[in-house]
């Protein structure tokens, strides 16, 4: 049921993505060839790009190709700039795959840092509720949650790249970069992503546990003489996994979106950077592909959150 809903969402989004572009005021063919192009040249290019077919046909053509992993070829790079040297535009897939790997690397490392840290901080803040530790942790997290991504990023640059030059400001990586070098170069974007999601995750973990701490069976456990640690870790935590895992999934999705800005700041060659560049150039196939990847990852992560919620509470498997 939830799976179909997710699929419907992605499908609907693909229709929306596609249709919005069909209603573009400008035409790509005229845009590529310039205002002075002859009518027949425009027509030829339109036929080549498939822009002359009706939208519905084009949509299903496109969708069929997408399922085969073919997003078409990029509009930019055609003739004008690079001259006519054989194949003028690049395959979108070839453009996206290495960038996608970079982005996954970045968010993956950040997630591995952020999730354990925020769980530990959140649980311990709930454990020592209203202590100075708890108050300062929630206070700091409020500030990080309220700061835009680029603010956090530039503070890191100011402190760790210019005032104390430990890490590089620009994270350029390519296939030849070794893993250690990669970690070193992506340190600042990883820190930034970690910090912007950690505040949220920590706060939500804390409130999930505190919420459970007010239930009756916890009172019972307390009365039976369980220590504070036992109450939180043994009794409260197992029931908190569902909300916590949802928090994690939502924040991973958020991290993915946040990576767009972070990649821009550090000039990291990820998919977000590619998407921003393509929006500037109005490069239709690339933006479509990126948007679809972002949206489906987002939907899948939310789906996983739901599934974990169901698995961790078997009662939900049998609706009344």
């Amino acid at each position, binding site marked *: 049921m939830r799976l179909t809903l997710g699929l419907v969402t992605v499908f609907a989004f693909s229709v929306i993505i596609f249709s919005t572009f069909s209603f573009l005021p400008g035409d790509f063919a005229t845009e590529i060839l310039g205002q002075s192009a002859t009518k027949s040249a425009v027509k030829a290019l339109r036929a080549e790009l498939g822009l002359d077919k009706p939208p519905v046909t084009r949509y299903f053509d496109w969708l069929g190709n997408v399922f085969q992993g073919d997003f078409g070829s990029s509009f930019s790079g055609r003739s004008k700039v690079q001259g006519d040297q054989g194949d003028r535009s690049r395959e979108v897939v070839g453009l996206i795959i290495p960038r996608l790997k970079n982005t996954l690397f970045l968010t993956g490392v950040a997630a591995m840092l952020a999730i354990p840290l925020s769980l530990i901080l959140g649980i311990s803040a709930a454990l020592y509720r209203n202590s100075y530790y708890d108050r300062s942790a929630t206070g700091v997290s409020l500030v990080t949650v309220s700061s835009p991504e680029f*603010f956090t990023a530039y503070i890191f640059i100011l402190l760790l790249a210019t005032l104390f030059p430990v890490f590089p400001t620009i994270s350029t990586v390519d296939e030849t970069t070794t893993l250690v070098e990669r970690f070193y170069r992506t340190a600042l974007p990883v820190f930034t992503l970690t910090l912007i999601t950690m505040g949220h995750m920590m706060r939500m973990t804390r409130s999930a546990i505190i919420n459970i701490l007010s239930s009756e069976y916890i009172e019972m456990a307390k009365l039976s003489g369980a220590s504070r640690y036992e109450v939180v870790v043994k009794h409260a935590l197992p029931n908190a996994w569902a909300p916590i895992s949802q928090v994690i999934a939502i924040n991973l999705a958020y991290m993915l979106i946040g990576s767009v800005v972070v990649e821009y700041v550090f000039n990291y060659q990820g998919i977000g950077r590619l998407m921003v560049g393509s929006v500037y150039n109005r490069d239709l196939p690339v933006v479509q592909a990126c948007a679809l990847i972002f949206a489906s990852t987002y939907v899948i992560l939310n789906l996983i959150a739901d599934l974990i919620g169901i698995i961790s509470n078997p009662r939900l498997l049998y609706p009344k």
Partner: protein
Amino acid sequence: MSENLSYSAKSEVANLIKRRTRLERLKIALSKAPMSAWFGMIVLFIYFFAAIFAPLIAPHGEAEIFPVAYAPWGDGHIFGTDQIGRDIFSRIIYAARNTIGICLLATFIALGIGTVFGIIAALDRGYLDQLLSRIVDTLMAIPVMIFTFILLSVFGPTNFNLILILGILESTRFFRISRSVAVGQVVLEYVEVARLRGENLSYIIFKEILPNIASPLIIEFGLRFIFIIFTISSLSFLGIGIQPPSADWASMVRENAILIQYAQYDITAGLTPLIPAAAIALLCVSINFVVDWYLYITSGLKDDVK
């Protein structure tokens, strides 16, 4: 003696519970407000003051260009000048007007659309409700930022489009909230009475239901406002949000980011691009504080052992 003979309920009850006026209640609530709420309100007041009276406060014009680009702090320009010689301090003040104005407008559009449709859906509970709810579910499953990207690249990144797109996309959250709260209200007698009286739809929505579901909507308004500021700032930072020559905090960060490189030689240069970014953060923290406080007053949290 004589005055005791005449009976008065008022004197017998002694302490008559007086219905307090709004102002009095506000005063009492304010006197109990925690430090954080005061901090938030004062900061918000300063921001709005700066936004409204920007031309009077700012020492220089928004797009006024001075001969020296990247001038240092002080010397006629409190925070120096930017890459083409505009006074940064003045632009920060004007940016308050642009950023807050645009974000507030988008939030109001979202509130308006979302709430009206939400209440209509709650009143209907039929096919219309199903249709609207499914549409909203689909829209909500897609990250707003990515959606905005696409729509902006289609319709072009003008301020008008920005406000409209975000207003419509964010209205889904208001729809959800207002629908779920209003569903509990539409079955109550007062709505039925209003219907029997023959009141029209807009009267029922605005005069009957809306006042009763206002407080969750106000809280949502605060949170959405923050979210919209974030989204618009991110977009502006990427160069597709608020368009020049309007000053706005996020694009100022991008324009002056290069100054960070010189932080070793002059710390103020390194701080310059961070000031507008900090302005956004401070605004969001303040709204958070005020919203938290409002949540605390309106929900029954008061008696809860904190």
